């Protein structure tokens, strides 16, 4: 049987008469939680942006035919040399075709796999961009524009024009922004390209592509698969690459292994392709957590300190409350409730301040070549962070209030009354 209204009214009086102290204690929580929210929103926002920078454009599994030397050279299989130590100089790569054998059925097979979000074929080739007598080397990739936009957010990197325009335009091309600058081209112009095996094709520019990596933008252009196949003089079964996006990125490694074994192709998973990037993400997350935990712990100690002082100041009150019939538990609840009220108010204010600061950061202009679609600093306003922040405010004030209030429960009123 606890008389909550009475206990809360006593806490309220204590808190209101020492309003300055209460405000300072609450501000301790507020700043702790506020900076936690701000920091975590900002840092995870940046992390997310950096992740997207790589992951959006990168297929989870990239399947292609690698030009490489045979693993087993003839000398290795010849019985006469079986027991000898063979040294072979100047090994040449094995002559194999660039195209993936039976690519269409393979794409169909992959798309039916429940783990696969989408598998789309590409045709990659080297070409020359021709500007008068000057030939500039480059890459032309044939794509399904709409699928690319859907799965790999290609539209984010098309600064002018659109993937739809490429889809609708016969003999269209989305030109790397670097080449466009070099050749002073604009949308609607035509650019002449020449594949390595000769011939000149005129393509209409429907957009510009900016990946953020200047070296790529200076060579890379996109057109439809059909157009590339026509330029190369190949049939519509000519596919050089298959890009796979999965539902769960963790499946990339096992699936890539399986494809390599099953189809005798090279399949690179995103983790292998971007190992150093993985490490970077992990470390950045680690830093975020370390800093947030530090902030929250510092806030917790502030509350502990202030409540401890409060209880020392209120020794006489504790003694008199106990002498007039309040139980130790009542007294403990009085101080616990003060701590929780401070935590609650401080926590809520902290969330508001955190939200305000994060929103402010969200409006600060941030322009980078690397990410043409981003104009302000990225903020990841995840409700989970607010939940964690608030829970921690309550938890830390609970712990910070628990120890001092436990002490107040144990205080012997006789000792205090007689000490005078």
């Amino acid at each position, binding site marked *: 049987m606890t*008389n909550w209204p*009475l206990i809360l009214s*006593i806490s309220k*009086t*204590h808190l209101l*008469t*020492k309003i300055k102290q209460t405000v300072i204690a609450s501000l301790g929580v507020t700043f702790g939680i506020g900076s936690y929210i701000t920091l975590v929103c900002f840092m995870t926002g940046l992390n997310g942006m950096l992740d997207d920078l790589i992951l959006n454009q990168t297929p989870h599994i990239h399947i292609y035919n690698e030009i490489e030397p045979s693993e087993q050279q003839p000398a290795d299989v010849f019985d006469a040399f079986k027991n000898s130590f063979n040294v072979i100089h100047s090994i040449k790569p094995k002559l194999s075709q660039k195209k993936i054998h039976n690519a269409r059925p393979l794409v169909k097979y992959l798309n039916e796999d429940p783990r696969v979000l989408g598998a789309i074929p590409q045709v990659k080739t080297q070409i020359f961009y021709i500007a008068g007598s000057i030939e500039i080397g480059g890459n032309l990739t044939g794509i399904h524009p709409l699928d690319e936009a859907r799965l790999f957010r290609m539209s984010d990197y098309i600064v002018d024009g659109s993937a739809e325009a490429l889809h609708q335009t016969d003999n269209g091309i989305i030109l790397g922004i670097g080449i466009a600058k070099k050749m002073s081209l604009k949308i609607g112009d035509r650019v002449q390209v020449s594949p390595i095996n000769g011939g000149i094709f005129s393509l209409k520019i429907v957009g510009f592509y900016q990946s953020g990596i200047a070296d790529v933008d200076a060579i890379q252009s996109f057109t439809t698969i059909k157009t590339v196949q026509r330029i190369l003089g190949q049939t519509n079964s000519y596919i050089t690459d298959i890009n796979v996006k999965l539902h769960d990125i963790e499946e990339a490694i096992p699936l890539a292994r399986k494809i390599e074994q099953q189809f005798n192709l090279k399949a690179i998973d995103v983790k292998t392709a971007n190992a150093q990037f993985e490490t970077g993400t992990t470390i950045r997350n680690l830093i975020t957590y370390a800093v947030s935990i530090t902030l929250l712990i510092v806030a917790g100690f502030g509350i502990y300190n202030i409540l401890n002082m409060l209880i020392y100041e209120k020794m*006489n*009150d504790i*003694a*008199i*409350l*106990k*002498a*007039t*019939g*309040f*139980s*130790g*538990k*009542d007294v403990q609840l009085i101080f616990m409730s003060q701590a929780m009220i401070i935590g609650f108010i401080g926590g809520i204010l902290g969330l508001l301040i955190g939200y305000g600061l994060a929103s402010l950061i969200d409006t600060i202009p941030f322009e980078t070549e690397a990410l043409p679609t981003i104009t302000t600093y990225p903020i990841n306003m995840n409700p989970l962070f607010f939940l964690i922040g608030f829970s921690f405010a309550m938890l830390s004030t609970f712990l910070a209030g628990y120890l001092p209030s436990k002490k107040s429960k144990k205080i*012997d*009123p*006789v000792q205090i*009354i*007689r000490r*005078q």
Partner: protein
Amino acid sequence: MSPVLEAKHIHKYFKKPILFHVLKDINFKVDKGEFVSIMGKSGCGKSTLLYVLSTMDTDYEGDLFLNNNRLTNQSRDQLSYIRNKHIGFVFQFHYLLSDFTVLENVMLPAKKLAEKSYQEIEHDAMEKLKMLNIDHLAKKRAFRISGGEKQRVAIARALINNPTLIMGDEPTGNLDSHNSKNVFDIFKRLSEEIGLSLLVVTHDEDFARQTNRIMTMEDGKIIS
């Protein structure tokens, strides 16, 4: 007449800094309406006895009865309740909650007891304050009033739950003679008019002489 408070063979030891036998076989009764004072030199154990009797100090041997209920070995929460309902305290230092108003100070024990509505408690508290002629201070903060006034507020607080027994630890020890007399007169009136039992530890011989009975203590024993 049945005794309000009865102590049987009370022994108490202080264990620190060395073992010390502070109360030795204390036996006595306080009857209803009786005004008893305990006198004795400093260190004779009279305050210690009072705190044992008050139920705040539970570390003793022997038996203690309030209205024929045995208090010894009851749980702390139970004792808190008994203290709240049946015993009123007045200390030498007034021990009001300084953050609260006079009225709130008086009302707190009754709110804790929670047997009456807020309005009833407020009404009772004002009655007690009026009885002690301090009702004009009701809305003042406790730390803004004088020592004599504080002591009367403390008495009002002790009375709020209509206890059977009031205990005082040198309630006039810190007051001048005028205020001492005032407090004494209030006690006397309570004992005669309401039939309240009072047990007061004091150094003040004038004060003690006017009570119904004086218990004198020496070296942890009651000698008269």
